[in-house]
């Protein structure tokens, strides 16, 4: 099963490689991994999307917790949560294609953020599934470049995951 793990870790050089090294050394799956500092610059938030049996995901959580730089590990699957991913995508959009491209962007609630004579660059957020659906809906030959951020997640409601 797919799990979204949310981590707080010391914003130290090397903390990221400890986490990624753990996943490769123990042959755990990693679908995506994002990391950036939080409101407290000494702490980073990392979101890792992984998959495995319950037993394996439990081990992943324990192994992450064991890393000396890791402050907290939460499996967002155990909470009601929201997940989002950002995609930047560059399309060829020449005269006759431009309207069609624009309509698709509207349907998927994206935004055109850069325009040239031949291209549109689009920004879109949503679940991974939605972004996949957008890519599928496009004609393959239109796509010049896709840049995805990987998943970020947060729990719903009053509860906050803090250090």
């Amino acid at each position, binding site marked *: 099963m797919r799990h979204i793990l949310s981590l707080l870790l010391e914003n130290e050089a090397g903390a990221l*490689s400890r986490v990624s*090294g753990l996943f490769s050394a123990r042959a755990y799956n990693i679908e995506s991994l994002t990391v950036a500092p939080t409101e407290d610059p000494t702490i980073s938030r990392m979101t890792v999307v992984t998959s495995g049996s319950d037993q394996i995901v*439990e*081990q992943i959580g324990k192994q992450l917790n*064991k890393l*000396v730089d890791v402050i907290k590990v939460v499996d967002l699957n155990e909470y009601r949560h929201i997940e989002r991913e950002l995609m930047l995508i560059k399309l060829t959009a020449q005269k006759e294609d431009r309207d069609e491209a624009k309509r698709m962007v509207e349907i998927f609630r994206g935004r055109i953020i850069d325009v040239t004579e031949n291209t549109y660059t689009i920004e879109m957020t949503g679940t991974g599934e939605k972004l996949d659906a957008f890519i599928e809906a496009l004609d393959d030959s239109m796509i010049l470049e896709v840049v995805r951020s990987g998943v970020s997640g947060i729990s719903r409601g009053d509860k906050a995951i803090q250090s």
Partner: protein
Amino acid sequence: MAKKKEILRGAEIFCRALEDEGIKHLFGYPGGAVLHIYDALYKQDAIEHILVRHEQGATHAADGYARATGKPGVVLVTSGPGATNAVTGIATAFMDSIPLVVFTGQVATHMIGNDAFQEVDSIGITRPCVKHNFLVKDVKDLAATIKKAFYVATSGRPGPVVVDIPKDITADSCEYEYPQEVEMRSYRPVVKGHPGQIKKAAKLLLSAKKPMIYSGGGVLLSEASTELTEFSRLLGYPITNTLMGLGAFPATDKQFVGMLGMHGTYEANMGMHHCDVLIAIGARFDDRVTGDLEKFCPYAKIIQIDVDPSSIAKNVPVDVPIVGDVKHVLTDLISTLKNEKDKPDANALKEWWNQINEWKALDCLKFDRTTDVIKPQYVVEKLWELTKGDAFVTSDVGQHQMWAAQFYPFDKPRRWINSGGLGTMGFGLPAAMGVKLAYPDETVACISGEASLVMCIQELSTCLQYNTPIKILSLNNRYMGMVRQWQEFFYSSRYSHSYMEALPDFVKMAESYGHVGMRIEKSSDVEGAIKEALALKDRTVLMDFVTDQTENVYPMIAAGKGHHEMHLSSDVDRELA
């Protein structure tokens, strides 16, 4: 009284911090990146520096020292090759959760990343085999980092910590203050076990009809031998130890059923297979212990105590997990058991012991005592007799290691010192040296094989220089015996590259290093030789025992087999028929 703070250079801070940490011995080898530190060491006398002959030797010696004393072992090596040579020893300590603090020199901060002379990414190379590592980027952080390194290495589940110090940091100076305490928001090891879980464990233990206690190295690391012994005696249940846990419960006690696992006793492994309640204490269900997981303890409910949550239910599902330090949890478990109305089921226990004693009667460790060819088991047994079971014994890796574990029953903790997890040949000799430095008045023996022994033989020089008179018993079968055994069993006796050709003359070798060498070729000479060696109290002695080349280690559980599917030696099979 507010003391005025001194301004010190990084190299001096290094020495002072070790002194303030209470460190007496530092195992090291110099080089460019650590020359400021070596200069500072020259000017002080609080810490004795032990100059090894290879950095692997430094880590193993510090490791042996740590295993014997419970205190952290400390190592100093230079950058580049110094650091890479230390890696085997760091990984060895990591696999067995031994507290080491290893300082590696590094090229100057502004050179890092430039492929400078003797630069290697020590932090990257050691990351997968340390508990944690630190790169010091500012001399102002040096003292606090050293404090943290010792704290992390020795607390919770212990392990090696590397501190990488660039050369310029050792030249820079700042005010010196050694922190009294450490607080790390991201590292807070659990100590006490959950009372509810302990209560559940007590109830389950008392409901058992065929209980087994299975304890490992965690008991020794937690200094909980007394508690383990009290706990086992209180219940009267059979107890087995892992290779790493030997000595935590007195091996000559009648409740002890021997080591378990691949080369464990028949009674220990059969007991595991048939038990209905198993309590694992500071043991991690290693594959050499469990055999095939599908066949592991098929009838048992399992309780597991471990300080490391990730060790619990990693390989085997557990019914009652208890996270906590073994010593604390056992203390609480003992008092909970004493307060329970129920007592162990005496009738069931009697039957269970009858069964176990029947298994024991098979005498699975029996070997041929009639030949004049030296049987390796006999050498170990004699050493045990002649040292009254009270020596510190280190070993290398192979058949001799298993025979040492089987034929030298340890009654006290921290006397059996071997590389269980990584299985590092070359460990025994430097480890013995480290033990002898810690306990100069104790007998320290190293049981080795002729292949393992030469892997760190250069440390014989260190033994001479620092006067660490150890007794080396090399069980010389002219084979990498354990490899040969597997080739005999699983590769139709095709002995591919496992024969030790062109061996040195070990007697002359010992002598050339300034020690005593002996060659023993007949069974009848074994006792006399060991006596003579032990009598040479202030000399390191290398005993080269020419042993039976064909001897195998039994019992043995082959890969993919369960505890109840052991190979037994032909001497024992005959009895069964």
